[in-house]
């Protein structure tokens, strides 16, 4: 036990004296949270839409007024009037505007006759996000326009009423669980990957191996020391990240305690995975080269940035065995839904099982000699 503590003590003393490493392992995920959270989370605004009115009737004018109302309030788009369609389409192709709303001749007449009136939205679909935002707003805009006549007493149309169980979750909050796991991973990668291999290459491990320390003491020492640093990174992200992302009641002690349990389970799983990957490596380039690939392979298929349900089958296989998936799911439950530990029981069980398997495999592969 003394020997395990000696290894941990040494690692933590060094950690305390390398402020740069502490900052890197915690600041990087926070920066990612803020940048990604706001880069993807915001609503699309101020698109330029050209309007070609070939009708000039009252319903057409009303439609243009609705467009201006959107431009003034939701500001999804601004309208630019064009005298003819050719000029508008030329500007669309040259990227000066994002779409052309075409009100054809006879539009007003068809509206008044109830004869299937149509307007066309010719859009630049190279940007899917902008295009779908535009389509959504236009469809909504046409909805009340359609209901201008008094509705019949009885309607055969089925409607869907949506009930939202949780308050609105901005994207930055949706991203927070993944970011917490990422911070733990970065710490595991630096502590369990880069520093571990650097120490080995410098011969520091040789110093350990000539002492009577046992194999399992050495492995446990390395892993617990790495986990301690990763837990610290996780806890900073849990608190600071919650404050930055604007999670309601961010310092709720009961929830923080539950998060601590999950932080510990995640840190142990990721550090033991890293140790297993690095157990036979001696070249300091290897952990650095694998850092980016591992990050991509583990982070993105975990559902941290996009719903798992949208993934192709082969990626779902990665998702199923990726410890990130369970950690991210657990943090989503705790952060976004404020559930109890019972709700994340399966996640904790997977992470614990993963830790045990990785540690056993690493112990079998670890060599007590050079």
């Amino acid at each position, binding site marked *: 036990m003394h020997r395990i503590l000696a290894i941990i003590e040494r690692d933590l003393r060094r950690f305390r004296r390398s402020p740069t490493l502490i900052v890197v392992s915690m600041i990087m995920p926070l920066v990612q949270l803020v940048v990604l959270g706001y880069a993807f989370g915001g609503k699309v605004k101020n698109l330029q839409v050209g309007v070609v009115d070939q009708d000039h009737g009252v319903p057409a004018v009303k439609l243009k007024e609705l467009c201006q109302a959107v431009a003034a309030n939701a500001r999804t788009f601004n309208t630019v009037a064009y005298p003819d369609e050719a000029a508008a389409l030329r500007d669309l192709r040259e990227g000066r505007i994002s779409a052309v709303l075409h009100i054809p001749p006879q539009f007003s007449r068809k509206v008044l006759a109830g004869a299937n009136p149509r307007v066309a939205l010719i859009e630049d679909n190279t940007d899917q996000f902008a295009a779908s935002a535009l389509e959504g707003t236009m469809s909504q805009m046409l909805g009340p326009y359609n209901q201008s006549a008094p509705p019949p007493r009885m309607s055969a149309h089925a409607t869907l009423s949506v009930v939202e169980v949780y308050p609105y979750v901005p994207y930055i909050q949706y991203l927070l669980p993944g970011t917490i796991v990422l911070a733990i991973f970065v710490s595991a990668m630096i502590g369990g990957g880069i520093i571990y291999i*650097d120490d080995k290459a410098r011969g520091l491990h040789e110093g350990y191996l000539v002492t009577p320390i046992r194999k399992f003491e050495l492995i446990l020492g390395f892993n617990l020391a790495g986990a301690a640093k990763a837990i610290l990174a996780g806890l900073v992200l849990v608190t600071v990240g919650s404050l930055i992302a604007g999670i309601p009641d961010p310092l709720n002690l009961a929830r923080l305690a539950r998060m601590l349990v999950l932080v510990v389970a995640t840190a142990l799983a990721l550090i033991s995975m890293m140790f297993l990957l690095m157990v036979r490596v001696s070249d300091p380039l290897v952990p650095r080269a694998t850092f980016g690939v591992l990050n991509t392979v583990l982070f993105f298929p975990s559902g941290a940035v996009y719903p798992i349900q949208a993934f192709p089958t082969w990626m779902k296989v990665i998702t199923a065995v990726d410890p990130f998936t369970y950690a991210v799911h657990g943090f989503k439950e705790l952060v976004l839904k404020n559930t109890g530990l019972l709700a994340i029981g399966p996640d904790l069980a997977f992470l614990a099982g993963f830790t045990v398997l990785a540690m056993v495999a690493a112990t079998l592969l670890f060599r007590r000699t050079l």
Partner: protein
Amino acid sequence: MFDIEVENLTKCFGDFCAVDRLSFTVEHGEVFGLLGPNGAGKSTLIRMLTTLVPPTSGTARIHGDDIVRAANAVRQTIGVIPQAMTSDLDLTAEENMGIFAKLYGIPREQRRHTIRELLAAVDLAQWANKPVKMFSGGMRRRLEIARGLVHEPKIFFLDEPTTGLDPVSRVAVWEMLSRLKRERDLTILVTTHYMDEADKLCDRIAIVDHGKLVALDSPLKLKASIPGKNILEVSFAAVPPDWRATLQALPEVAEVKAEDHVFRISSNNGPRTTVELMDAARKAGVTVASLSVQSTTLDDVFVHYTGHQLRDALQAPDAAASPFMLRH
């Protein structure tokens, strides 16, 4: 019982045997030097004896314990200073010692006392609380020597402890080792490239080449064992044309090399050759400008046994040379 007994110890990597059926013994209290060209197998031998590398065949016992079957007992008995400097740069001298004292399971009270005593013994007491990254190479090496003694080992292994140090630090390290050996009743096995050090400090020297033992004796006997025990370096003001042949004909002369008026004469009996040479010079009317007589050095012994050939051989890349590592 010998402190170190090595019997047919062999380590092969594929077809190549770094250590090939080596056998020798080291008595208690000896300073045993291991010399050999680069790649001769010295480090592999030390690594086997310190339980870091398992042997392919053969056995070795340290203080009676088998290096494979009783590896942990061996580890408790030995202190090891590896070739690379392995102290932790971010930690202070005292912390470095403390961690290793804990790894050896030394109780807290004894720990504090031993660390203080050892740091004083290697003249680092005043730097005990300074981070090792501020230490010079010599200070780091001394710290590592103190660290290797923290559990009071009986047998001390040092792999090139003075390589890369300036002459003053080298002398300091060796003086410290001699004193510690006396005070702590140590047996020391050391490898070095510095023949003068080995000559002065080792009781016995083993010369290893191609993984095999080529000579083993005290420095004095080793020097006596090779032909040409003395080297005379003599220069003359002016010499007659067949002067070299005259010198070669002098009694006890083994070999004469000449460069202008300077001659280098290997002799089996320095004093006698010197007297005869002065006689011959006087008779021929040749003026001796300078004369020096040198004894055979261990360098000569080393070259005699291992040859002049450079040992260029490919080896596994050194991970510590990677440009990708963090600081230090």
